[in-house]
């Protein structure tokens, strides 16, 4: 019975993440459009796009990995989702958050990149391969401040689990945003790279690589990738809310917190061009890493 509960809860969580992620994506398009003096698409446009991709009637494949790439991507986002507490008390989302900790989550979250990279490699498109090298390089870039922020939190609060970090905030009454501000800054700066919006949209840079790893994927593959990206956006936002903003007691709180967090990369991205790969990687090893080191020092000092 427990297993059924998990499966059922997992599906509900997935649907929630899918809907929220897609709506956020649509909102992003709307906001960008407004900044660009346009009316913009409706905020449910992403659903239409996704369903259109889903209902494409033909597809091509280049081999087994072509199928498995999007599947790996989905594994990364959905499994990460299932190990993150959505609400503080679980409620309708009885997921597996007591069964994994942050380090597990770190690996689970980077797994998608590698899996997608394999799928992109099978297509044999040179643009895909170049996009993959860029994506992996960028990943190594932003993982450094990100792990620093997480390690700082772990040291400061003596726990490596997300639920532990949420409990700490509940007990002390302050958000970790204030308890370890530098870690928050480092993590947010790293998140700019994770979201891959400008100036870090170097992987699928259209003017350079014609959408990079996704070049050969249309229809059902792109649908899977799009859903996975939406879910993953939700995962990242919820994780940030859990780690730094004390989690959420109910859905409204969750939506407000995640939306505010989502606006940081979105609004930063609208007004910036794209970095070159090595510039992006170096950017992450500049100030974000400095903040990460300060965060660790602060954590050591404060415990």
């Amino acid at each position: 019975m427990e297993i059924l509960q998990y499966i059922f809860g997992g599906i509900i969580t997935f649907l929630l993440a899918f809907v929220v992620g897609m709506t956020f994506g649509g909102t992003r398009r709307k906001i960008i459009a407004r900044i660009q003096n346009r009316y913009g698409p409706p905020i449910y446009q992403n659903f239409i796009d996704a369903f259109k991709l889903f209902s494409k009637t033909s597809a091509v494949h280049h081999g087994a990995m072509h199928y498995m790439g999007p599947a790996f991507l989905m594994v990364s986002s959905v499994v990460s989702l299932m190990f993150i507490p959505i609400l503080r008390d679980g409620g309708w989302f009885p997921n597996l958050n007591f069964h994994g900790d942050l380090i597990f989550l770190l690996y689970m979250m980077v797994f998608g990149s590698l899996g997608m990279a394999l799928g992109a490699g099978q297509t044999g498109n040179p643009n895909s391969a170049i996009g993959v090298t860029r994506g992996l390089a960028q990943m190594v870039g932003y993982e450094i401040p990100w792990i620093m922020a997480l390690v700082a939190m772990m040291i400061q609060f003596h726990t490596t689990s997300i639920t532990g970090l949420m409990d700490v905030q509940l007990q002390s009454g302050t958000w970790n945003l204030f308890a370890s501000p530098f870690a928050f800054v480092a993590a947010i700066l790293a998140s700019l790279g994770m979201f891959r919006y400008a100036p870090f949209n170097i992987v699928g840079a259209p003017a350079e690589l014609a959408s990079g790893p996704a070049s050969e994927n249309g229809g059902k593959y792109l649908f899977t990738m799009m859903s996975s990206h939406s879910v993953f956006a939700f995962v990242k936002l919820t994780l940030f809310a859990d780690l730094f903003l004390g989690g959420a007691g109910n859905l409204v709180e969750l939506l407000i917190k995640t939306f505010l967090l989502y606006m940081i990369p979105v609004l930063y991205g609208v007004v910036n061009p794209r970095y070159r790969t090595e510039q992006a990687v170096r950017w992450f090893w500049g100030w974000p890493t400095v903040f990460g080191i300060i965060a660790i020092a602060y954590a050591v000092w404060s415990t």
Partner: protein
Amino acid sequence: MREKATTLYLGPQHPGITGNMMVRLKVEGDTIVKATTEVGYLHRAFEKLAEKRNWLQTFTLMCRFCVPEPDPMEESYSRAVEAIEGRIVPERAKYIRVMMLELARIGSLLLWHAGQAGSTGLYTVGQWTVGDRNYILDLFEELTGARIYHMYIWPGGVRRDFPEGFADKVLKTMDYLEGRLKDYDNLMFENSIFQKRTQGVGYVSPKQIIERGVVGPVLRGAGIRSDIRIDDPYEVYDKLDFKIPTETSSDIWGRALVRREELRQSIRIIRQVIEKMPEGAIYNKVPNPQKWTIPPGDALARTESSRGEIGFYVVSDGSNKPRRVHLRGAAYVHAMTLLEDVLVGQNISDVSTIMNSLGTCAPEIER
């Protein structure tokens, strides 16, 4: 035998290409080791078709030479025809022509803003400038009836006089644009990432630029003050006061600054033109086009477009059809040979940026 370097095709179907052409890039890692341009996707044989058309029918073909700004083509063709025939253009028409050319330059530079910013991923500027370009096109539409291909500057003058209140509208649009320029500066020229992406990239040595006969903002970006409007003045440019901006860095950034300043100078010129424009006739009427013959002779008319000089070499053999119309686009000389040289050693990320910066326009090569 398979080549060592990977082949990347930038174009013809590619978001980063500036027109329907192709650059065959051989890359090793992120670095381009060899670049070959391939053109011919747009060859419509204008010059061939002109053989069968009379002088005025040819005119409708010629303005479709390169699409971002058709007015310099109309101007060049008209001036070449006028030069062979010895037709006098009324003074007011000359002023209107200058205004049209400068408006076209503004429109084209706004489009360039979009291309240059979009190639680095800054789409917001592109959305703004292309949106604002519509205001210029509105002016065209009101004056000429068309947004893109106006066929307004034609041999003997211009086709239509100002509608009522048009001059004010032009001035108002210029005021609006001048206000918008600050926004573009904020987002584009003052953005450190844009600077990082462009400074020191796409360098062409001034020596090479002169050798290749490169013209326009690329030439001025290398520190050479050369502009047809001043060197070989046509219409009424010698009566107007404007500056020719130059930069010495000869990279994308330098060329961008040149173009940024040219936009401001164009606004200045338009204001002067509106101010100084005399009243009078606008058109020295040509005969019935079917019977309109032009005495034998040849002429080369050059016009400074936003991408550089555009030359029309027109030859008449005394009949009612041109013997030969031969076009020289701004990008004709450098789009292939220079681009192939400049791209070697550059990063893949910068190809599109460099092409935008050099003002590569495929139809000018192909015609």
